[in-house]
């Protein structure tokens, strides 16, 4: 009999679930023998309120391993997360939304109420529409990472997380050992050529392709920061590299920090500004600095920009 496992998704886009499937053929013995999946809405039919929907309390069965993806942005997410914490012995937060807020936490930088109102006032929306509020979960005041609400036993960021690391975490749990995870930053896993900053004084927008010879291996391409692009490799946790180079770099595209900060409580905006300033690069040349927090906007990092408080006293 396998180890009982529950999988839930909160404010998730399903990318983490597809990343799990991308473990490939090795996943088959894991899900059919090593694990006994007792609850996983994406793949199987266990229901919250009984199989005929007559119950009133949201219930998830007990499980040794719980995996939760997505951030916490409404009351149902919170209820499901708390129930997962209650019923699972080991709770894993999978993906950057669960560990740091992820892209949906960009909403933390906006006025949530006003934004929601405007969503229901777009050019094609029937006039007079109100924000729905019947039988739909009410939003929280902002988007939270899972560990802001419950204790999390293991964090595995990534947008999406690396399937090899997901498999490593599951297998290490089953084998009762610590997982082998890469440490440090994306730069540590990047083989591009470093020659020094040269005469780069400003960062440029990614509106031209990087300079490289098509088909040439990645280690022949000059580091994208040195080419003058904003690349968040120095301030982003390692983990995305497959086939010898960080994922985006392998497509000749600069990093935007999707694995979250190098240290759990790092600040990707401040750290990047520091890195640029230390290298004499004009921080003002970064258009839309706040989007450097696009993956790590939970934990109070992103807040609405205050308008001038002239009337306060």
């Amino acid at each position: 009999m396998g180890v009982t496992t529950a999988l839930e998704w909160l404010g998730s886009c399903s990318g983490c679930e597809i990343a799990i499937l991308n473990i490939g053929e090795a996943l088959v013995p894991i899900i059919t023998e090593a694990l006994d999946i007792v609850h996983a809405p994406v793949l199987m039919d266990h229901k919250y309120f009984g199989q005929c929907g007559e119950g009133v309390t949201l219930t998830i069965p007990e499980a040794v391993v719980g995996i939760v993806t997505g951030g916490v942005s409404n009351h149902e997410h919170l209820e499901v997360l708390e129930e997962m914490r209650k019923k699972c012995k080991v709770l894993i937060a999978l993906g950057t939304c669960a560990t740091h807020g992820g892209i949906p936490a960009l909403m933390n930088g906006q006025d949530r109420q006003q934004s929601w109102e405007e969503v229901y006032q777009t050019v094609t929306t029937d006039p007079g529409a109100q924000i729905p509020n019947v039988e739909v979960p009410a939003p929280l005041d902002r988007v939270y990472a899972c560990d802001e609400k419950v204790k999390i036993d293991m964090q595995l960021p990534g947008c999406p997380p690396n399937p090899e690391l997901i498999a490593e975490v599951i297998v290490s749990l089953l084998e009762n050992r610590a997982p082998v995870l890469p440490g440090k930053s994306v730069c540590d896993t990047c083989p591009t050529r470093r020659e020094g900053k040269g005469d780069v004084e400003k960062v440029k927008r990614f509106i031209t392709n990087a300079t490289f010879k098509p088909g040439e291996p990645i280690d022949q391409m000059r580091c994208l920061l040195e080419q003058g692009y904003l690349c968040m490799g120095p301030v982003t946790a390692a983990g995305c590299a497959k086939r010898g180079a960080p994922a985006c770099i392998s497509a000749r595209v600069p990093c935007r920090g999707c694995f979250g900060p190098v240290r759990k409580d790092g600040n990707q905006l401040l750290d990047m500004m520091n890195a640029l300033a230390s290298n004499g690069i004009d921080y003002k040349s970064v258009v839309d600095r706040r989007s450097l927090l696009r993956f790590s906007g939970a934990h109070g990092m992103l807040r609405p920009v205050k308008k001038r408080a002239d009337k306060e006293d």
Partner: protein
Amino acid sequence: MTRSDMIVELLGDFGYEPERFSLTWVSSAEPDKFVAAVTEMTARIKKLGPVNRQDASVA
């Protein structure tokens, strides 16, 4: 000096009013200037109110 300009702008990125930061040069022979600077800053901050009133709606 560039770094202090940067600090003010970055404070704004995180939702803090620029008035919460100030860089003033005072020598040890200018006690009045020091007192004035601290008094003015204290009054300014009191007027702005506590930082964690972020969730209160602002004008």
